[in-house]
């Protein structure tokens, strides 16, 4: 395998892990925060109460656990790949989040939003066909 192919392969595997666990984490965070209710205000006591309720929720911690797994994969891939490559390439998770929001959280997703999400995926595809690393290791 050529070095460039190897670089693309290991980058793709890490990004696949990222776009698999991050949307699940996001979904659990969304579900947990909806149960907690809207941010009541910006006073210190309101903020404390809001985040206290957030961080005593099991659903939130499940989301955080999945996002920590995402974070480790993210740091590893950033050790060789460009930030301006990884960031848009991992936005495929937006599409998966929308699917989970629609079919698991039963949110209504307007057609315009689906078109937007499809464009995000198209942009990811275009970015994904550039070289992952443009700086010297």
């Amino acid at each position, binding site marked *: 395998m050529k070095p460039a192919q190897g670089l693309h392969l290991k980058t793709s595997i890490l990004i696949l892990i990222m776009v698999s666990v991050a*949307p699940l984490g*996001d*979904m659990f*965070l*969304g*579900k947990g*925060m*909806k149960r*907690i*209710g*809207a*941010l009541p205000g*910006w006073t210190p006591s309101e903020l404390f109460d*809001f*985040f206290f309720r*957030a961080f005593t929720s099991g659903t939130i911690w499940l989301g955080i656990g999945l996002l920590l797994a995402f974070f*480790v994969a993210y*740091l*590893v891939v*950033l*050790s*060789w790949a*460009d*930030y*301006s*490559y*990884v*960031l*848009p390439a991992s*936005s495929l998770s*937006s599409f998966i*989040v*929308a699917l*989970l*929001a629609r079919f698991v*959280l039963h*949110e*209504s*997703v*307007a*057609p*315009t*939003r689906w*078109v*937007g*999400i*499809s*464009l*995000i995926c*198209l*942009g*990811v*595809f*275009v*970015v*994904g066909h*550039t070289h992952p690393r*443009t*700086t010297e*290791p």
Partner: protein
Amino acid sequence: MLTRFILYFLIIVPGTAGEMCMSHAMKKIGEVTDFRPHSIARVLGRAMGTSWFWIGITMMATGFFALLGMLSVANVSFVFPATALSYAVGTLGGKAFLKEQVGTQRWVGVLVVCLGVLLVAIGKGK
């Protein structure tokens, strides 16, 4: 509306700046070539020894708290696609601060992503 704007700003700006600091920290550590758990743990331990890592973590934590706040008032199907605006901010930052070579194709991809974000933001829904 103002609350949403403040939260959105905090997600995009400190969140993206934090990720750039993290990218800088990881580039300084060097490429990960050994994927065994203890080797990855050792690399992460080395990353934690850099100041860029902690600056990044602080900024990303700010973005994360703002994200939790945003999720309490808006739908998941809006919040996460809308935060893709950070891709444009991140690409600009990658070029300006991390000296990455952003070619025409990558710019086109990022602009398409941003157009998609715009449609997600103006799409009906909470």
